[in-house]
């Protein structure tokens, strides 16, 4: 018998934990404060499936022992990796602070924490990997952090996305914040952003 745990759990973290985490955090802040802006986190980690690189980097930077993570189609290797590098454990949707799901649908408004009127921050941030942040459907954005309107383009499993956004926006100040990832890139749609399909 061997005590050696799977190598994937140990490898693939930030090379320089303090500075890499700060770098990712700074870019994430740009993405959230300027909704729709695509930021590239770069090649800074190697995350096990089903996490994409940007999802892995985001969790490495801001997940910790106090933030249960829900992963729709998780794997043991990923759970070990996350536990070793961040201390975060895999949790049920109802307690998740971060949720990695395959599509942003209304279902998640019933299953993930939306925050309360007294503490709207006690809600989940949803991470969705899409096929592209450059081609596909166009959406118009408006709201805080956007000068007038701006436009994003997304490709992927987005059938009921418009409906989801509408329902989510109606919950304000509660609701889910959304981060679309694609490889090492991401863009954020906080709950305050109004999204309309073009």
């Amino acid at each position: 018998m061997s005590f050696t745990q799977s190598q994937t759990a140990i490898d693939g973290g930030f090379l320089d934990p303090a500075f890499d985490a700060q770098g990712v955090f700074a870019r994430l802040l740009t993405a959230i404060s300027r909704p729709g802006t695509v930021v590239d986190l770069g090649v800074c980690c190697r995350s096990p499936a089903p996490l994409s690189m940007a999802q892995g980097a985001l969790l490495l930077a801001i997940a910790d022992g106090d933030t249960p993570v829900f992963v729709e189609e998780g794997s043991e290797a990923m759970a070990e990796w996350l536990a070793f590098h961040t201390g975060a454990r895999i949790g049920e949707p109802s307690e998740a602070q971060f949720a990695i799901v395959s599509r942003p649908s209304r279902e998640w408004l019933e299953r993930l924490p939306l925050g309360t009127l007294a503490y709207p921050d006690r809600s989940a941030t949803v991470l969705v990997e899409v096929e592209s942040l450059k081609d596909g459907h166009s959406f118009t954005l408006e709201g805080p952090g956007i000068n007038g309107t701006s436009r994003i383009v997304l490709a992927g499993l987005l059938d009921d996305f418009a409906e989801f956004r509408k329902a989510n926006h109606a919950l304000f100040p509660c609701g889910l914040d959304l981060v679309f990832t694609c490889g090492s890139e991401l863009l954020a749609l906080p709950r305050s952003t109004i999204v309309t399909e073009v």
Partner: protein
Amino acid sequence: MYVAVKGGEAAIANAHRLLDDRRRGDRSVPVLTLDQITQQLALAVDRVMAEGSLYDPELAAMAVKQARGDLIEAIFLLRAYRTTLPRFAASKPIDTGAMKIERRISATYKDLPGGQLLGPTFDYTHRLIEPDMADDRPVPEPERRSCDRHESAPRVTDILGADAMIEPDGEGTPEREPADLTRSPRTFPADRDARLQALARGDEGFLLALGYSTQRGYGRTHPFVGEIRIGEVEVEIELPELGFPVAIGRVKVTECQMISQFKGSKSEPPQFTRGYGLVFGQSERKAMSMSLVDRALRAEEFDEERVSPAQDEEFVLAHSDNVQATGFVEHLKLPHYVDFQAELELLRRMRSEQQYEDAHKEAAQ
């Protein structure tokens, strides 16, 4: 209108420099070392760790030194330090039954299994200041007595519990994470886990006064010290990368089991109920006070009328933290020039209105 007033930078810098000087005092007197503080002022260090809610004797000693012996200031420093560190894990609950006992007494059972061990206590001293303290007299080694028997020292409540004369510990609910007031704000009514955490880091003086008040009739209890034990316990952590728990070292704690009478209810027979105290370091006054207040706060559980401050959960938990308390009290000394000016204006207006009314009345007469 808001008027910002600038100035004072030089005064502040010089004040801090003066503080450094006064802290050091007469340079011909040797400077205190941290070892001296952890060894010779061990109970001050213990109090700072308990109320600072951070077990680290060396850091606590640094805080005591930096605070010039002002323990609440030292506690504040420790609390501030802990906010800079990531939390890696939570330990498995410590097992006080497996404690390496340094002191263990019971006021209820003379001949309890494991015996009465006085340890390094102030009890039975005459409280006369010893002239020896003025100089460095050699101190004899402590007496030793071999101890071959491996008699265990079960917690006294486990002994009484065996006869069903005392309420049981109750089962933990493993699926629920205990409340953590360092992570999420207090809510009322609080569960016992949240109360115990608040009491464990609460101000010793505040809890002492509240505990005292329950004895004097404010929240009727008739308590006995079932047991006090002081000693080291092992801290075990389950690391996710290992999959099994490992011991990472030991901490010293003080535990107090306070037993008090209960006349029974519809569902429960008459029995003894309990209050619990557990504190970092050696501090039996704090552990005893905590157990009295814990019991008083359980009033609802036993259908007792809540009439006294010690039974009022909101009052106790909202005021037990000395860092919060000192912050709010001490902020009063910071500039309030504008607020005060506004109140002064208000008073002047009220006076002139009154004078006007008086003059009016006089004229009418």
